């Protein structure tokens, strides 16, 4: 008898714990439910609010459809893409080149690092008016703003990666009679790839910020320009569309870089797992 009485509460507790464990094991179901509830509540609660200040999911969806169909969104997207691509390319290639140079040549390091440190310390947004003054409102200005924001993590990570190459690895090259350039291309550079890729991933995120900042403050074009125009005309539903597109662009690019990063840095992750 006492056995049953003791057993009953445990059984009930067990059932509850089972449901919790099940939810814990299926995080995507919890996430999906959370998003659905959020959108449902938004749709229901925001319908009666003034469309000047608030909007709701189905209105955003209709707005997205409308500005895609009339060409506004695709045009803005392409207008953003061009300076973005140039700026990101310069940030990556230029950042790696600068990082390599200051890591390899002490003289360049001493010459350049006061300026790099100063630029890094100033919030780059504060430089935007100056950049506009010197580089103008068009593509050159936009690319310059973007690069000034996105290039630093690439420089810093490349530098750190090269400085972190273990003496033991360099000794292998020396012992086997590698030339200076062979040591650089066959040992130092591949050994720093994981660092450099982490820098590139950070640069992608910052480049998107740089793009939007540039479009806010220079010639009002692209996705950032859409945000400014729609907000000035209180087209709140439309305003959400470029914001969402920018978010999706960020997620897609970061995922892409992380995929490359995983492929190139696989040896490092596995090495870490082991030791």
């Amino acid at each position: 008898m006492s056995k049953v009485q003791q057993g009953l509460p445990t059984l009930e507790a067990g059932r509850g714990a089972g449901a919790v464990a099940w939810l814990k094991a299926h995080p995507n179901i919890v996430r999906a439910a959370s998003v659905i509830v959020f959108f449902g509540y938004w749709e229901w609660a925001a319908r009666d609010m003034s469309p000047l200040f608030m909007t709701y999911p189905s209105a955003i969806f209709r707005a997205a459809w409308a500005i895609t169909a009339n060409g506004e969104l695709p045009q803005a997207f392409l207008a953003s893409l061009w300076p973005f691509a140039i700026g990101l390319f310069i940030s990556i290639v230029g950042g790696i080149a600068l990082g390599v140079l200051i890591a390899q040549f002490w003289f360049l390091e001493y010459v350049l690092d006061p300026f790099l440190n100063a630029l890094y310390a100033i919030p780059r947004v504060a430089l935007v008016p100056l950049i506009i003054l010197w580089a103008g409102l068009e593509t050159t200005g936009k690319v310059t703003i973007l690069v000034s924001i996105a290039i630093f993590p690439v420089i810093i990570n490349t530098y750190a990666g090269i400085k972190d190459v273990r003496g033991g690895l360099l000794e292998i090259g020396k012992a086997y009679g590698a030339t200076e350039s062979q040591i650089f291309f066959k040992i130092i550079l591949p050994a720093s790839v994981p660092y450099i890729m982490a820098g590139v991933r950070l640069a992608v995120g910052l480049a998107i910020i740089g793009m939007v900042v540039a479009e806010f403050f220079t010639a009002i074009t692209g996705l950032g320009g859409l945000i400014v125009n729609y907000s000035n005309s209180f087209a709140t539903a439309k305003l959400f569309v470029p914001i969402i597109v920018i978010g999706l662009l960020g997620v897609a690019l970061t995922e892409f870089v992380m995929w490359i990063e995983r492929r190139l840095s696989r040896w490092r992750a596995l090495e870490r797992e082991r030791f």
Partner: protein
Amino acid sequence: MAGATVLDIAGGRPGADPTSAPPMVAVRNVTKRFRTRARSGEPDVMVALDRVSMDIDEGELVSLLGASGCGKTTLLRILAGLVKHDEGSVVVQGTTVREPRRDLCMVFQNFGLLPWRTVIANVAFPLELDRMGRAEREEVAARYIETVGLKGFERHYPHELSGGMQQRVGIARALTRKPLVLLMDEPFAALDAQTRESLQEDFLRIWKDLRTTVIFVTHSIDEALVMSDRVMIFTPRPGRLRRTIESPFGPDRVDRDVRALPDFARCRQEIRQMLREEPQ
């Protein structure tokens, strides 16, 4: 008195005969000093190697044995051309060693593999530095990978292999250039006892086939006795070559377990005694 020892203190050995071929490696009065900072902050000099001389014949496998800090690694790095010595000379096959040479190849204690390269790319690395074409160097590399018993692991990465297998890769890499002298710095010290013994056996067999000259650093008396034709005993502070001992087991130690021989324990005891001798 001399008859009481099993070990033959080298001197009258055939290699020292003036009519025979010149030695493969000739080390003459090599001295190496390091500047160190003493506790007072005053710069101080420590003598890592004090007038070390030795001759090593072609095809010989010689061990450098001694306690930690007696300059074994320093001597090996001087032989490899990685470190400059202060006095004396190092000549390998008639040419003075001044910088790393293609015909002197190193095997490292911590294996020294490039972790982002597969086994075959690691083994082919020296040939890649020599600008040999890809197909050709991979063919050579594959051959030596088979020699060290790693056939089938060509496309694996170092971290996918055990320590013993990684050092086999290190040995294969050193062999690809067909070196005159193989320099090995405690190559098996990082391995567990069983793996170490199987690598010792396999390496002796490879050495017997290839007949390369080998200089082998170790601080294990057993390993020195199992592996080498001659054992050179070093003592520290300053690093000096104390004694050179002929192996009592000769070339037929390969493929045989010399550890089981009655002489083995006595040799080991005598060497231990020598290592303990106070430097005069």
